[in-house]
C-alpha cells in the first residue's frame, strides 16, 4: 500500500543563467509503514527530497502524492495545515526553542490543533513517556544533553500523531550511545506505532535500523548496490 508516490519529481534552482537541479525526474514509492534510509554523497539531493516530502518545499515539476493528496497543488497555507496534520520533522540540530521547556517544546505543534489544555497535557505526557524523557519535562534545552534534546525533538515530531516522520541526519550530531538510543527509538516508533519514516543519514551503521536503504546521486536514485553490500555484510 503506497503512502508516498513521487513521479518525475524535479526541483530546480535558477542561479543567473545556470539551472541547478538537486532533484532530477525522480520516481519513488514509499509503502505505508516503511522505514526508508536515504544515503548519498553530500549535495546529492537527500535533504531536497526530504523537504519536498515534508511539505516545506514545492517541486518545480512532477507530482508528489501523499495519502491521496498531491502536495504540488496546495497553497502555502494549505500546505502548512497539511504539515501540521501529517508530518513530524526531526532535524539534525534538534531545533528546540531555547526559551521553552521540554514540555512546552513538545506542546508547540499541538497549539495548531483544536485541543484544550487537558487534552494537550495528555498527549505531551504520552509523547515524553514514549521517548523516555518524562523526568526532564521542566528542563530547558540548554539543561539537556544532545541525545536528550533529540529525544525531546522526536517527542515533538510524534505528539500530533502524524503518519510520516522525516529525519535529516538525526544522529549526525550525537555520540555513539546517544545515536544508538535515538535509532532504536525511531525503530520502535516504526514498528510499534506504524510510523512511516524517511531518514537521511551519512552513517552506514544507522541503515541497519531501516527496512530499506536508497542511494541518491546527483538528484537521481542510484542502483541499490551499496545496500546489497550491506545486506551481504549482515549475512556474513
Amino acid at each position: 500500500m503506497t503512502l508516498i508516490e513521487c513521479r518525475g519529481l524535479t526541483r530546480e534552482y535558477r542561479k543567473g543563467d545556470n539551472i541547478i537541479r538537486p532533484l532530477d525526474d525522480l520516481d519513488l514509492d514509499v509503502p505505508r509503514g516503511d522505514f526508508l534510509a536515504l544515503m548519498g554523497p553530500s549535495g546529492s539531493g537527500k535533504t531536497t527530497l526530504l523537504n519536498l516530502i515534508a511539505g516545506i518545499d514545492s517541486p518545480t515539476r512532477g507530482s508528489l502524492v501523499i495519502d491521496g493528496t498531491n502536495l504540488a497543488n496546495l497553497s502555502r497555507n494549505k500546505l502548512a495545515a497539511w504539515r501540521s496534520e501529517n508530518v513530524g520533522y526531526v532535524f539534525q540540530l534538534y531545533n528546540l526553542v531555547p526559551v521553552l521547556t521540554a514540555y512546552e517544546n513538545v506542546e508547540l505543534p499541538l497549539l495548531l490543533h483544536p485541543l484544550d489544555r487537558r487534552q494537550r497535557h495528555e498527549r505531551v505526557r504520552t509523547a515524553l513517556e514514549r521517548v523516555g524523557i518524562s523526568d526532564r519535562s521542566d528542563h530547558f534545552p540548554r539543561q539537556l544533553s544532545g541525545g536528550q534534546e533529540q529525544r525531546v525533538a522526536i517527542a515533538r515530531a510524534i505528539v500530533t500523531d502524524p503518519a510520516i516522520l522525516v529525519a535529516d541526519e538525526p544522529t549526525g550530531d550525537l555520540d555513539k550511545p546517544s545515536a544508538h538510543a535515538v535509532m532504536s527509538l525511531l525503530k520502535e516508533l516504526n514498528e510499534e506505532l506504524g510510523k512511516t519514516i524517511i531518514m537521511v543519514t551519512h552513517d552506514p551503521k544507522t541503515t541497519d535500523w531501516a527496512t530499506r536503504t536508497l542511494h541518491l546521486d546527483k538528484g537521481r536514485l542510484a542502483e541499490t548496490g551499496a545496500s546489497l553490500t550491506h545486506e551481504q555484510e549482515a549475512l556474513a
Partner: protein
Amino acid sequence: MRVRQLPFNYAFRNLGRSGVRLAASLVGSSLVVLLILASGGFVRGMQLTLTQDAGMQDNVMILGAGSEEGVERSQIDASVDGIAAASIPGLKERAGVIYASPEIHAALPVRESAESDEDLSSVMRGVREVALLVHPEVEIVEGHLPRAGRDELMLGELAATRLGLPEDRVAIGQTLYFDDRDWTIVGRFSAPNTVMNAEIWLPLTDLQIATNREASLSCVIVTLDRATFADADLFAKSRLDLELTAIRESDYYASIAAFYGPIRIMIIVTAVLIASGGVLGGLNTMYAAFAARVREVGMLQALGFTRLAIVMNLTEESVFAAACGALIGATLGLVLLDGVAVRFSMGAFALAIDAPVLLAGILGGLVVGFIGAIPPAVRCLRLPITEALKSH
C-alpha cells in the same frame, strides 16, 4: 480560516534572550515617550496658558483703539474704568463693587539690586483690589496684596522662572530693584494656566508713577453678567472721544496663541523627527534580534505555524518591550517634567502633562515597538523555509 497563534508566553520569554537588547528596547521607547511628553507638555502648557478657562469668557478687555495686538502698547484715559462701569449696563457686581478693573500692563526691566547691572525681563501689572474679583483665578497663597505707596510687590508662581531667578530669591521679604529703588515682595499668588501666573503685580498708582503715565491706563477689564459682549462693544464704539476698542479676553489670548502657532508646529515636527530616530533604533535592535532566530522561525513554519502567526508573535514581543519602556518613560515624565516651569518670550508657563499628552506619549512608544518589529519580522520570514532551516 482561524489563525492558530503562538502563545504570548513565548514572546514574553524571548525578551529575556538578550539583556542588552531588552535594555536597548526599554531605554529607546522610554526616551521616545519622554520626548513626546516633553514636547507635548510644552505645547500643551503654552496652550493652556493662552487659552482661558470658561469663566474668563465673561471678561472683556477695553483697550486703546489699534492696540488689539498688545496691551502693553495700549494707552487709554485714566477715567475709563469709572465711565465704563457707569455706561455698560449689566456688568457683574458684588456688594456695590462693579467688576471693572483698571490696569497697567508693562514690560519693565527689573534688577536684583541697585548694584546689579543685569536687566531681568518681567511683565508687570498695576492693579486695584477689584482685579482679584475680575480675575478669580488669582489666589493669594502667601502674604498679602501690595499696598500703595509702600514699594510693595506680589509675584505669581512662575515669576521667578520668568525673571530667571531661583525660587528662594523671590520669597516674601526679598527685594527687587527698579525705578531707582528697592521693592519688597509681600505676597505670592497662584493663577494656574494663565499668563498672570508669571507676572509681578503691584498697586496701580505705583506702576503709573514708575512708568510716568499717571493719567492713563493700559486697559480696563470688565466682567459681564447680564450684559453681553455687544454691550461692551457698543460702549467702546460709541465713545469716539475715548478711542476705545473692546475684545473678549479669551479672544485676545487666542490671537497671541495663534502668533505662536508656527513655534508649536516646529516643536511637534522636531519631536516627530527625533521619535523617528527612535523607530530606526528600534528597527536596528529588532533586525539583530530576529536575524539570530531565522532557523527557529523556519522550524516553526515547518511545524505548520503560518507566517502571520509568527509575525504577530514577533510583534507582540517588540510591542510588549516598548510598552514596558513606555510605562517607565511615562512615569519618569510625570515625576520629572510635569509642572516644570519654562521661560518663554511672552512669559513663563508650566509644562502640562495631562491625559491627552500622556496618551500620545504612550501611544508613541507603542508605535515605535510596532513599527520597529514589522520590517525585521517580515525580513526574517522572507527566506524560504528550507533556507531558513540551513541558517546558523
